[in-house]
C-alpha cells in the first residue's frame, strides 16, 4: 500500500470562498447580487438567450465571455428543435448547481472526488401547459436527481455531501420554495 500526502484538490478554492463569506458577513451590501439574462425571440418557439453582465460586490461585473443558450421544443410539438426546452434548462440549472455545491463541500471537507455524475429527471403532465386540464399544474410534478459519485469517502459521507449541497444550493431553493415573480411590459 502506498500512501501519499497529495492534498485534496477538486479545483475549488475554498479559502477564497470562506474569505468571501467572512467579508460579506461584515458587508452585507456588497453581498447584494443581481443575475441577468436577455432573451430574443427567433421564430416559432425558438428563442436565443444571452448572459454576460451581472451586478455584485457593489458594481457592474461581467463574465469572461458572452454565453448564449437556444431554447425551442422538439418536433413532436410541431417545433423545429433548435434547442432544449426551457424546463430542460431548469433541470440543467438544478443539476449544475447541486454538482458545483458537491465539489465545494467536498473540498471543504477534504474529500477527493474522482467522478460525480448526475442524472436528472423531471416528470411533467403536459396537459397543464397545453391547457387541456386546468387541474394539472404547468410545472414538474416531481423532480428526481440521481448521483453516482466516486470519492475517497464512506457512503454516509457521500450522502452527507449531497445533502449539504442541497442545503446550500440556490437553484434547489428556487425550485423548492415560492418566489415572487413580476413580468412587466415596457
Amino acid at each position, binding site marked *: 500500500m502506498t500512501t501519499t500526502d497529495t492534498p485534496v484538490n477538486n479545483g475549488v478554492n475554498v479559502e477564497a470562498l470562506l474569505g468571501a463569506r467572512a467579508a460579506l458577513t461584515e458587508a*452585507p451590501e456588497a453581498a447584494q447580487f443581481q443575475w441577468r439574462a436577455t432573451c430574443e425571440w427567433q421564430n416559432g418557439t425558438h428563442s436565443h438567450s444571452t448572459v454576460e453582465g451581472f451586478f455584485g460586490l457593489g458594481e457592474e461585473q461581467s463574465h469572461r465571455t458572452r454565453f448564449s443558450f437556444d431554447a425551442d421544443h422538439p418536433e413532436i410539438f410541431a417545433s423545429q428543435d433548435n434547442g432544449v426546452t426551457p424546463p430542460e434548462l431548469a433541470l440543467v440549472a438544478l443539476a449544475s448547481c447541486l454538482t458545483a455545491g458537491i465539489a465545494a463541500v467536498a473540498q471543504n471537507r477534504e474529500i477527493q472526488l474522482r467522478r460525480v455524475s448526475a442524472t436528472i429527471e423531471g416528470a411533467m403532465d403536459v396537459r397543464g401547459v397545453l391547457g387541456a386540464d386546468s387541474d394539472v399544474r404547468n410545472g414538474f*410534478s*416531481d423532480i428526481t436527481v440521481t448521483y453516482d459519485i466516486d470519492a475517497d469517502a464512506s457512503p*454516509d459521507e457521500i*450522502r*452527507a455531501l449531497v*445533502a*449539504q449541497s*442541497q*442545503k446550500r444550493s440556490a437553484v*434547489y*431553493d428556487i*425550485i*423548492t*420554495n*415560492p418566489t415572487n415573480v413580476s413580468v412587466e411590459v415596457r
Partner: protein
Amino acid sequence: MRTTTVVIGAGQSGLAMSRCLSDRSIDHVVLERGAVANSWRTERWDSLRLLTPNWQCRLPGYAYDGDDPDGFMTMPEVVDFITNYATAIAAPVQSGTTVASVRRTDGGYRVLTDQGEWQCETVVLAAGAFNVPRVPAFAEAVPPTVTMMTPMEYRNPEQLGEGGVMVVGASATGVQIAAELRRSGREVTLAVGEHVRGPRTYRDRDIHWWMEAAGVLDERYNEVDDIVRARRVPSMQLAGSPERATFDLNALRNIGVKLIGRFAGINGSHAQFSGSLRNKCELADLKLGRLLNTIDEWATDNGLDDSTPPPHRFAPTKIDPAPPLDLDLARGEIETIIWATGFRPDYSWLDVTVLDGKGMVRHDGGVADSPGMYLLGSPFLRRRKSSFIDGCRADAQELIVELTAYLDRRASPVRA
C-alpha cells in the same frame, strides 16, 4: 444604590452566577421581573417536562437528590428545584423588579428599574435567550378565520377548537405540542424545516447520558466549525416523558401526524410549503448517524460494549412520496396554527452598543463586547450544553473567573 455586580434574571443562570459571586464574596444583587424561575412558572405549557434527566440537574453547589434520578421534572418541580436553590444559596434576589434600561457609565453600568436605580461595575445578562417568539412575517397574511398561537400562549389542547391544527416547526417544542394535540383527537399537520433528530434512549441508556459521557455536550464554542450556525441549530426532538418515549418524526407519523415541508409563504389564502422535506429529513438522519457513531466509538474505547446492548441504527425518517406543497387555509381544515418557530432574547432594555445586526449580544464565550458585561444561558454560549441547567453550572463557573479577573484589573491598573 451601589453594588459590584448586578445580575439580571433569577432563573438557573442568574442564580448559578449568584452562587459563584457569593463564593468569591463579590457584592451583588439579582434582579427579577417576577418571582424566581419566572419563565418556568409563566411561559410553559402544562404537560411540559424538562428535557434533561433529573440526575443532570446540577447547579454550582447543588444537585437533584430525589429518588427518581432518571425521571424528568414537571414544571412545578422545576420551579421548586430552582426556588429551593435560591434559598439554599441565600441569593440576594430582588423580585418584582423590572429592568427598564442598562447604560454604560464611566465606572461601569447604570441599571434603571421600576424599583430604583443601581450603579455597578459589572453586569450579568441572565434574563434568558427565549423571551420572544420568532414568528415569520408572512404570518400576517394568514386568513383571520385561522387562530394563531405561539408556544408561550399554548397551555393544553382544551384551549383550541376541535378542528385541524398546523404546528409550524419541528424542534423539541413543535414535536411535543404536535404529539399532544394529535393524541387529543385532532388532525395535526407538522411543517418541518431543518431539525435535529434524537432518540430518547439508545443502547438502554438515555441519549443525554451518552452525549455527556462521550463529551458531546461539553464540546466547546471555540472548537466547533461554525459557531454562528451552531448557536442557531434547533433543539433536538426530545421530550422528558415518564415512558421515555422518542418524539422523532417517525414516532409522530405513527400516531397520525401529517408531515409536510417547511412553511415557506402565503399566496392569497394558500399556504405554501417547501419541496425540501426529503432533504431536511436526510440531513437529520445523517446527523443522527454521526452522533451514534461518536457514541459507539466512545463506548468501545471505554469498554462498555460488553455491558450494553450492541449498536444499532434507527429506520430512516419516512415521509410520503409527494407531501402537499399547497394548502388553502380558507377551506377550514386548519383551524389553528401554532408557530413553534423559535424564540429570541428580549434586549429592549439594553441601551449599550453591544448588539450585532441580528439583535444578539456580541460576545466571546459569554464575555460581552462591552467591558464588564457577561452573558449566560444562551445556546452554545461556551459549550453545547450551555442552554441546559447543567450548562449554566459549567458556564457560570468559568465566567466568574473572567469577571473576577476584570475586577482585579480595574482595582490595580497596569502602569505604563
